[in-house]
């Protein structure tokens, strides 16, 4: 199976988020439709650290989850014909285990459990120095594909 890496410029072809919401720096390995892993380096220059919190800087949990979802997106959009497609979150279940601090590197792993008709079910783990910081079960969609399979109704464009 084809596997490759994506640097910070290349990954933007497969991940539509941009500053300040691009939560991955590098994809070390991706197998389209199967998995992707990479990392985000967190410096004190990250826009959220000064305010979250002034007396205890740490990465917001919502952005940790976003990092996992973005890596899962890369695992999906690297499949043929899906480059640059926008994904939306459908349902996430996340558990936080450790604070992530300025100066640390967040290692992000995402695995596709199923991909069918525009809906992806997957799971992800983010860790620092091998210690799990958060893990999530995720469901994301490419609305452009999902909508093709829906009966006529109020949510079909």
């Amino acid at each position, binding site marked *: 199976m084809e596997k490759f890496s994506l640097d910070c410029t290349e990954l933007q072809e497969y991940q539509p988020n941009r500053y300040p919401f691009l939560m991955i720096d590098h994809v070390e390995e991706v197998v389209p439709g199967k998995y992707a892993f990479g990392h985000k380096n967190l410096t004190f220059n990250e826009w959220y650290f000064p305010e979250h919190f002034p007396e205890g800087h740490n990465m917001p949990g919502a952005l940790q989850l976003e990092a996992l979802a973005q890596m899962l997106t890369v695992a999906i959009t690297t499949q043929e014909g899906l480059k640059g497609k926008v994904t939306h979150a*459908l349902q996430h279940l996340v558990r936080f285990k450790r604070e992530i601090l300025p100066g640390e590197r967040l290692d992000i792993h995402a695995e596709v459990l199923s991909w069918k008709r525009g809906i992806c079910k997957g799971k992800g783990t983010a860790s620092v120095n091998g210690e799990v910081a958060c893990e999530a079960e995720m469901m994301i969609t490419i609305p452009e594909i999902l909508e093709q*399979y829906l009966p006529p109704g109020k949510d079909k464009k």
Partner: protein
Amino acid sequence: MSNIEKYKQAFVESFSLSSDVNVQELAYQSIAEWDSVGHMGLIANLEEVFDIMMDMEDIIDFGSYEIGIDILKKYQVDL
């Protein structure tokens, strides 16, 4: 379990319905649970239960419990 019972059970499981819901009256978006994601869950559930793979046009046409019965006949599933 008969095919019709399996069919009804697929709706109950897919939408986490209580026993007092009359599944025969259900249609796409008639309840909150039968939304876009619920629709795909129902189709996936039916495909697994009856070991079939539905065509795209049938997934689109599957707009209610009653219509679904006719659609499944195309896949040799008599309810």
